[in-house]
């Protein structure tokens, strides 16, 4: 990669990552599947399983439709304490590019603030881990071909319903 191009690409990927977490943190979940390609992988997996080479995920979708279904369930079916997320994402590092597929990594931390009556306004470190992303450009728009979220916080506090 040429120097200028690499800098520009990284800026684009960082903006994309920032927009992704803002979508989740501002509860625009209906827009969340659009960050992915039609056929995609979104997988949230505990560190414990990733380290053991075991496949069981916490959340797994292999199409934008499956991600939409999760949002519909979130809005209509699932029952949980209302809450806010705040993602803090570390510096995005681009680790490779092959045939137009950019591989990138970034550490994340998510603070969850509870909004139900018994714990209103209580924040906690909810999840910390790493994003392992494969990104492609579709008509100039970056999208996740694959987003693997390896969750160091294998012990999930209460439940995980809003995507990471």
């Amino acid at each position, binding site marked *: 990669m040429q120097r200028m191009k690499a800098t520009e690409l990284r800026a684009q990927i960082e903006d994309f990552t920032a927009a992704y977490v803002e979508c989740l943190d501002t509860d625009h979940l209906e827009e969340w599947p659009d960050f992915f390609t039609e056929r995609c992988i979104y997988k*949230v997996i*505990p560190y*414990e*399983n990733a380290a*053991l080479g*075991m*496949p*069981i*995920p*916490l*959340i*797994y*979708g*292999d*199409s*934008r*439709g*499956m991600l*939409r*279904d*999760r949002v*519909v*369930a979130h809005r*209509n*079916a*699932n*029952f*949980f*304490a209302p809450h806010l997320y705040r993602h803090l994402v570390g510096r995005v590092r681009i680790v490779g590019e092959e045939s137009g597929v950019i591989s990138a990594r970034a550490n994340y931390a998510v603070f969850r603030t509870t909004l139900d009556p*018994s714990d209103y306004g209580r924040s906690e470190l909810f999840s910390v881990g790493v994003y392992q992303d494969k990104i492609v450009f579709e008509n100039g728009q970056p999208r996740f071909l694959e987003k693997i979220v390896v969750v160091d916080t*294998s*012990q*999930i*506090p*209460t*439940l*995980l*319903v809003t995507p990471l």
Partner: protein
Amino acid sequence: MSGLTEIQGAQRNGHRTIDPTRVPYRVFTDPELYAREQEQLFRGPTWNYLALEAELAKPGDFRANFIGETPVFVTRDAKGELHALVNRCAHRGAMVCREVRGNRKNMVCPYHQWSYDLNGTLRGVPFRRGINGKGGYPADFNLAEHSLTPLRLATYRGLVFGSFSDSVAPLPEYLGPAMREHLDTIFNRPITVLGFTRQLIHGNWKVYAENNKDPYHGSLLHMFHATFGSYRSSQDGGMVVNGAHSKMIALRAEETQEVSAYTQESVGSFSKTLKLADPSLLASRPEFDRFTTTIQFLFPTLVVQQISNTLATRQIVTLGLDRFELLVTYFGYQDDDAELREMRIKQANLIGPAGLISLEDGYAVELVQRSVSYDKRATSFIELGGRGTGDQDSLVTETAIRAFWKAYGELMGLQWGDAADESYGTARAD
């Protein structure tokens, strides 16, 4: 003395046993009761789930776990024999096994490097004779007297259990024929472990025990299937009860029975049925006759679950009066083809801490714990399906919850008082 006293001694008010239809909420909030459970229940005449044998396939494999709050670990020694040991050095109490799982030839305590065989026998201690004739252990020091504390260990169909009790019934008898029959079905051939999830729930462990014995909430709290119209169980099924053990069996509905009780009673959001954009989520293969869901609770801390093609053990690990970890171990069979394996992995979306049909349970437990924390004299109302504690061929019943409290009350040896008395379940200082 505050709290609950033993059943021995003075009889009072005629009702000495718990009324399983009116359980005082203080069972979830009394620290004395919790401490007593650790001794009389977890370290008492019970068999506690420790691991799947599949996790301990090779000599040298080990797995750390807990019975109640007591740290323990299981090993497979060089001869292939399994051992369960208290995870506490015989010297000054340090935790010996410091990894969740792994493979080792022996266990060395990091504090002073006391070295143990995988069966818990002490093999060596540093500076036993001191240095240059000074210090060291007395001449009568005997390695053989300082082994790790062993537990009784028993396996059934590849499930490993441990017990602190010399008097507990042999494991098959403890489980009973009806519970064994189900394990025979689920563990009918060699399994392979597919992964783990862990969930920290801020509630008393018995709130979750009740949850697993409660088919009533299944389709009312967990609305995923109803929302997407994918619900295929017509609530056909039943509860099989053996004391504090139970199993819930939900049967696949015949095609003609798809209209369930929800539509008639307009429960929740069933009226506006939505469609899955990607139904591959629910792709499944029938495996167990007409069972769609079986939830087996093996007292005190194990749940064996089969929901569609998801197979798992769930272990309750107590972390205090109002906290427990739920450790789920997912498995398939060694002879699964690629398609079935993929189904199990995809269906993992449905269960566990982020499960589309299960994530509510963590929150439900916390809702109970929060609201019972103050009014300790209040009781729950457990009369769905009558007041009995036997098997029922219905899922609209709380029979297994009643049976649980009855058995729990007996095992804990408590005097509960008269249910009509407002001090029911509270202090007795006769």
